[in-house]
């Protein structure tokens, strides 16, 4: 909801530009990573995932990059649209009961 968006780092992007959202993770045992999108007042929605044996995975307008050396994950959104405005957060998965979620980045798309 709206209160979750407060105090988050904000990325402002012009409509049509590309967006890059970053995430640092901490658990070397995590073998699966997910990006979620959360719109105001809604639950998190799956965007794209990647397993630890991959460096890059592409979806429709989105790409996830994984750098295991520095424990870094990024989400690239191509040709950002107003409908992309939301909070984005990553999750690292070690097992079904050990999932750690990031606090998120708020993406603001300027028309």
């Amino acid at each position, binding site marked *: *909801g709206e*209160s*979750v968006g*407060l*105090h988050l780092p904000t990325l402002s992007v012009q409509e049509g530009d590309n967006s890059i959202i970053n995430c640092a993770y901490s658990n070397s045992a995590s073998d*699966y990573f*997910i990006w979620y999108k959360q719109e105001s*007042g*809604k*639950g*998190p*929605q*799956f965007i794209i*995932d990647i397993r630890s044996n991959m460096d890059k995975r592409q979806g429709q307008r989105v790409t996830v990059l994984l750098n295991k050396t520095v424990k870094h994950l990024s989400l690239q959104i191509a040709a950002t649209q107003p409908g992309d405005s939301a909070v984005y*957060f990553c*999750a690292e*998965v070690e*097992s*079904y*009961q050990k*999932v*750690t*979620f*990031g*606090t*998120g980045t708020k993406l603001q798309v300027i028309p």
Partner: protein
Amino acid sequence: DAGITQSPRHKVTETGTPVTLRCHQTENHRYMYWYRQDPGHGLRLIHYSYGVKDTDKGEVSDGYSVSRSKTEDFLLTLESATSSQTSVYFCAISDGPYGYTFGSGTRLTVV
């Protein structure tokens, strides 16, 4: 949020009163979870279930209990609500460690 429903969507309750939140799924997924979401924190696991009558604690389980008497229903109970339990609560389902699906959330305010 297809296949997963949370109720109620909003609730205001008084300190010291019991509160039960309900999560209902139609996906027949084995795993169900309750998370809370607060500003400055990622989603934090309260309790989870890996089958009917099989539940376990998450990282922030104090003050909460759960029950799962049917595959489709997972109840979260605050035995005696406190102001620190004011939060947005999300239920999630999965059929393994991958691919969480979240509900729309319940905004709980304890006054």
